[in-house]
């Protein structure tokens, strides 16, 4: 069990049951559990969708697409069964919020799935949990079984005459499967490789049926929206950025943890007040605002940013997944870029050329570069590689690898130059790395 943190600025909506034993269905019911779904059973499907649209709920996985819109895309009539899919393949580096929801409040996810199903006319939902979250599978499995036992799932739920089934499924450990179409492939028992789109999942999804795929936090927000009303949820955040969000503070920060804050919360405040500032009196160098796939912010940029979708998209950047990683002034940005690239190289599915080969060569080049074997032309080459991946890969993983790399080269070029001519990394103690450790250059 992860330690929970708190701060007075928090607005507890999704996290309101954290730490209260709500994984137990009876305790969950005491905490207003399963009331929203019963309310939704009395509503027309379009009214549910409109309520969600009013809430301005935007996808919490990182892309920030309007949830209500996504649901509205699902055709009313379909020859094939429709499905609700919970994307619990939370793998974005720096992001650990879905894990807490699944651990502390799994029933809110189940409830969200059923409400989404009522809204779009689906009768089956799948909760897909990343392979590394093995222990959460047990929690979710029990929660589903308990819900069935109470008659909340299965035939004639809540005596409404409607049926709804929820199944759990676990991944095999692939970041790529967080991409919605790859997740469907994985769930169907195939290699986790994205599909060609269009058609989009809302039209042709799981087993060819119309499918809604939402992030865990997104669906966990839905019951609260139904209970409190979309407008109230929307009012927590700035216009068009409804509600609160679980921000995962990590890195060089005094009080790391998951905090539920309204969208639009200033990043500076988040770091220095909510997170308690940077340890050892060091200064801020950079912030990864929402998982490793986002543009890395300098300290000056971070001071200006509000944490909502539109503040970032104005700059052509992304708010991302809520994983805020703070880097202090003793961090080597070359090493950071390398660490990020190691991740993407490891996770690239290999389907398309630019991502498969690009991440591999970036990793190799950055490894050599950080070890002191860099040449001046490598700096441009690293950027060139990233630029030629951006926007040209089969799925966004290539972009996710290119974006941080490009922003690091652009913003911290001097640190790259400091590594040139065989000089050791300026941020590592002298002598910690010898020339013999350099990779062999073929």
């Amino acid at each position: 069990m992860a330690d929970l943190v708190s701060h007075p600025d928090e607005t507890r909506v999704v996290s309101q049951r954290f730490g209260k034993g709500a994984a137990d269905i009876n305790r969950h019911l005491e905490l207003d559990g399963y009331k929203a779904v019963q309310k939704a059973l009395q509503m027309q499907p379009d009214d549910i969708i409109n309520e969600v649209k009013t809430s301005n709920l935007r996808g919490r996985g990182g892309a920030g697409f309007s949830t209500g819109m996504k649901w509205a895309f699902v055709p009313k009539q379909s020859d094939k069964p429709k499905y609700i899919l919970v994307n619990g393949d939370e793998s974005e580096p720096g992001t650990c919020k879905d894990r807490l929801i699944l651990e502390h409040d799994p029933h809110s996810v189940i409830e969200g799935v059923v409400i989404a199903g009522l809204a779009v006319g689906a009768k089956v939902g799948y909760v897909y949990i990343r392979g590394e979250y093995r222990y959460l599978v047990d929690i979710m499995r029990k929660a589903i079984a308990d819900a069935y036992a109470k008659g909340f799932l299965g035939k004639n739920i809540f005596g409404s005459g409607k049926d709804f089934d929820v199944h759990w499924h676990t991944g095999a450990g692939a970041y790529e499967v967080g991409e919605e179409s790859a997740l469907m492939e994985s769930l169907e028992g195939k290699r986790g490789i994205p599909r060609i789109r269009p058609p989009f999942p809302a039209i042709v999804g799981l087993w060819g049926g119309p499918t809604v795929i939402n992030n865990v936090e997104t669906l966990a927000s839905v019951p609260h929206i139904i209970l409190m009303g979309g407008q109230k949820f929307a009012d927590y955040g700035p216009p068009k950025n409804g509600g609160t969000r679980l921000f995962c503070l990590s890195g060089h920060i005094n009080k790391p943890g998951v905090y539920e804050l309204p969208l639009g919360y200033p990043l500076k405040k988040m770091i220095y007040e909510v997170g308690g500032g940077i340890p050892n009196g060091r200064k801020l160098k950079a912030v990864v605002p929402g998982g490793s796939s986002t543009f890395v912010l300098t300290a000056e940029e971070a001071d200006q940013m509000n944490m909502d979708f539109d503040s970032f998209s104005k700059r052509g950047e992304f708010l991302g997944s809520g994983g805020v990683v703070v880097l202090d002034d003793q961090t080597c940005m070359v090493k950071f870029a390398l660490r990020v690239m190691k991740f993407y190289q490891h996770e690239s599915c290999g389907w398309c050329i630019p991502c498969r080969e690009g991440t591999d060569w970036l990793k190799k080049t950055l490894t050599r570069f950080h070890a002191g074997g860099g040449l001046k032309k490598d700096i441009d080459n690293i950027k060139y590689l990233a630029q030629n991946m951006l926007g040209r890969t089969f799925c966004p993983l290539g972009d996710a690898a290119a974006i941080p790399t490009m922003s690091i080269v652009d913003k911290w070029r001097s640190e790259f130059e400091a590594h040139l001519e065989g000089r050791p990394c300026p941020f590592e103690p002298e002598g910690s790395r010898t020339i013999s450790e350099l990779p062999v250059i073929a």
Partner: protein
Amino acid sequence: MAEPKSITITVDGKSLSAPAGTLLIEACKAVGIEVPSFCYYPGLSLQAACRMCLVRIEKMPKLQTACTVQITDGMVVTSDSDEVRQARKSMIELLLGNHPLDCPVCDAGGECELQDMTFKYGAAESRYMEGKLHKEEQQWSPVVYFDRPRCILCYRCVRACGEGMDVWALGVQNRGSSSVIAPNQGDHLECEECGMCIDICPVGALTSGAYRYKTRPWEMKHVGTICTHCGDGCKTTLGMRRSDTGMDIVRGDNRDKSGINGDFLCIKGRYAFDYFDHKDRLRHPLIRRNGQLTQATWEEALEHVGKRLKEIRDTQGGQAIGVIGSNRTTNEENYLLQKFARTVLGTNNIDHHRTTDFAGFARAITGKQNATATMRDVATASSILLIGNDPTEQHPLLAWNIRSNVRLNRAKLFIVNSRPIKLRRQAAAFLQVPEGRESKFVAFLNGDDTAAGSLTSPAVSNDSLKQVRDQLRGAQDPIIIFGSELRGADIAALVKFGSGVRAMFICLGDYANSRGAADMGLYPDLFPGYVAADGPHNFNEEWGKVPQVKGMDIAGMMQAAKDRKLAALYVVGSNPVTDYSFDPAALQNAFVVVQELFLTETALLAEVVFPAASAYEKAGTFTNTCGDIQLLKKAGEISSVRSDFEIIVRVADRMGADTKKLVPFGKGVHADMGQSRGAQSGEADRHAVWLTANNLDPRLSPFDPMAILDEIQRLVPGYEFSRLNLIAGNDEHVTAAEHSNAGAGNGLVQIVPANDSLFTSGTLGRYSHTLNSVIENRRSTESKEVMAD
């Protein structure tokens, strides 16, 4: 179905129209704008993996893959700009990063798509310093090798194997830059060994065990000819080099996609040419001396055979001589052989190894228009009924066309078979009926509901039978394909049903020219074009006197031999001792002459054995089981063997026959009895094409098969095809069966299906190193089928 409406788009400032729904890459290709791609392959599922076909489409934020975008009205596309070129160049750079660049020794060097793209988009400098990823080369089967470093992961092989062949023997292991194509058995393949994965590989990652490291593509002469194995007639391109024995076939592939087989070729077409230089290949005439077959000269052998046959004919009459022809010699040779038998030997005792009832088929469809389907039709028909046979094993191209049609056009396939043949996986309905009851199904089709009783089983209900019949009755222009399970009256009954739904038929026979053997009259009772020997015909006028009575079929000859009434047996490219269990003892006193490639069980009994040229060493035509006629091109020649055509002419000459009457060569020019290479080669040089097209070819040699083809086209109705088209390498459809005049059959037809598998091919298969080397040839039980993903 209504044609999709045509819409207009703009590519690089040019306006072009294509049907709605066309993929952008195809729309561009149709007007000559090349959008490069590795992973896109027409007819296979879309991948969008190689990112080579990225183009700029107006109003789209990112570059788009032309291979997945369907055109929409008014779409404005830029396929050639600095941005697009840079995107393609960077893909090539990335691919070459880990590529071994061993082009100088790579089999694909010179015919490699990665080379071509690099040449076009330029990625001359490497941006990387680190070592390349390396993996050792693997041998997956005797014929398939895989070299991971060269692989660009376009997944064409995976799809060709899975979607195309329905074998699913290839997949992908690992992920990211460690991704690797893997065979189904972990370290080796168990599959149909078709080699499609090698052919479709754009680089040298998958290479052929038969060809690798033998030569460079530009060092070969490429000869497009016809496969000599099954009855489907795939075009195969032979890579030829000279050698000390005259020629070497280095490889077979289907780089020429113009054939009736399109992309397809099976293990036989690709590798099983290799019997041609088997060490047991006959290279000298043999004459039996003191009981032993001993090496002789051509002069001795021809003289001996001519003299003896003349003696027997003159003393005992032609009725004492039997002739057995071949399923694997050309139309011209078959025609010549029966003409030789009837006019020189003076006998109608001529037959061949009948693997299906083509004569019965001809009787059934005579006088009907458009009654036979071409192999190409199978790929487009809206519905197909298959009764009997196992095309996956016996007619691999037919199976491929059926599968492709079902996959790409949603054709309806109905199968009636006594075994669970693999094609059932594509079938809309599969009716497994008890062995031998296929004819009952035909009766049921014709409305005999009582026949259903003998067809039903737990798997086949009365209702399912009726459903299939209803669907077939409502089918539009279906193709009905049947194997040797149906004969004689059953075929007639099937044709009766099919005529009601305007069906076209395919009668399946084994071996490369079994249809040609039938069309050319290798029958004791039928002249060329299925003309009854005892009926009205004009062959007396054309050829001089021919025997008016029916001759003996193989069974009759066997009996006559036993009764010591057969004085001579002349066998061309056939092995009746094995195929028909012809009693060797019965032939003890007969004068047996055999023209063969190998010392078969029949040849072992011969008095004289002539070493014959294989179909790779001669020109002529083959008619496939559908009736598609194609040109067999002479790929080369090996020393000391002669074509069956030449041997027959020379024997006739030694018998004192007028060769000019036998082969209408010369047209007034003095006979050239020497080797006339140009005339025999059948090569389409432009002058020859022009001469032939205008029927002006002087045909200086009696060994020119085209001289006989002139006569065939003149005398066999249904063979009036475009000679020009044929010589240009295209297929033509012949309809001798529809024009037949066979009279009533005697009903006692001995059909002996070859029952070959993918890895056997009669006599030739026994001498193919490749067919005998693959482990699938030795599997004792049916291999496990793998379901599609």
